[in-house]
């Protein structure tokens, strides 16, 4: 049931929807939070050996919101082990 909901949500994805946690002009945290949530979700689900499809939502949202240069910088930092956030 949950799996079909996620699939439907991902199929109908147009762009990052309004997020009530970040209602104002400054969307910096919205982008960063979704990036964090994607990596945390992936880490937890792969540790359990479960399907990581639900994490796709966070990936779509951070890809919509975050500048490409920020994503590349954070990906490099993750590889180096210097990423400032807690995953």
């Amino acid at each position, binding site marked *: 049931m949950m799996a079909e909901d996620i699939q439907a949500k991902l199929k109908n994805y147009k*762009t*990052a929807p309004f997020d009530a946690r970040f209602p104002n002009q*400054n969307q910096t945290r919205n982008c960063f939070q979704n990036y964090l949530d994607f990596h945390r979700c992936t880490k937890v689900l792969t540790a359990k050996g479960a399907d990581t499809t639900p994490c796709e939502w966070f990936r779509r949202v951070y890809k*919509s919101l975050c*500048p490409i240069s920020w994503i590349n910088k954070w990906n490099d930092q993750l590889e180096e082990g210097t990423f400032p956030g807690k995953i």
Partner: protein
Amino acid sequence: MAHPSQLGFQDAASPVMEELIHFHDHTLMIVFLISALVLYVITAMVSTKLTNKYILDSQEIEIVWTILPAIILIMIALPSLRILYLMDEINDPHLTIKAMGHQWYWSYEYTDYEDLGFDSYMIQTQDLTPGQFRLLETDHRMVVPMESPVRVLVSAEDVLHSWAVPALGVKMDAVPGRLNQTAFIISRPGIYYGQCSEICGANHSFMPIVVEAVPLEHFEAWSSSMLEEA
């Protein structure tokens, strides 16, 4: 776009800008009426031979010229607050575009589906073709579907810039490390120009913004062709 000797705003291309123009017309009319009244009173005072040395005070006129201005201010404040809250309405965008300011060009990223990104440099004056606008044209335009709510996230990669398109009633500062959100709906197809609005170095005046609003099918064709080009 702007015209030589232009006095007023550019024609509105978004509902918000239409509201702003109406509000400005309303407020400017009040300003003109008050100024005309004051100018009349001054010329009357200056050009009369009559003198009256014995009036000390008058409760009635004091009350009138306190209450009347208060009413006028309320008549300005109410529509102003209405538009302020209207601009803050929660919207549900169909598309997100990132506008990144650089020294000295803008780059646009359309990453809802694929990773489409491109730079937008000003066309130098010597390279313009007849009919193009000096200091306003760019090699790539930010193409957008018309009548569709669009979210633009503005940021910068080096120093402060500002992304402005007057016909849409939009201006948003581009701050490095910060993602500033603005949104608009373009009511009609067309090409809308803007210029960088925060001093950013030698070529601050030479990094314009061009938004091209087209029907959805044209937008989809454009984005497919842009992805193929890359």
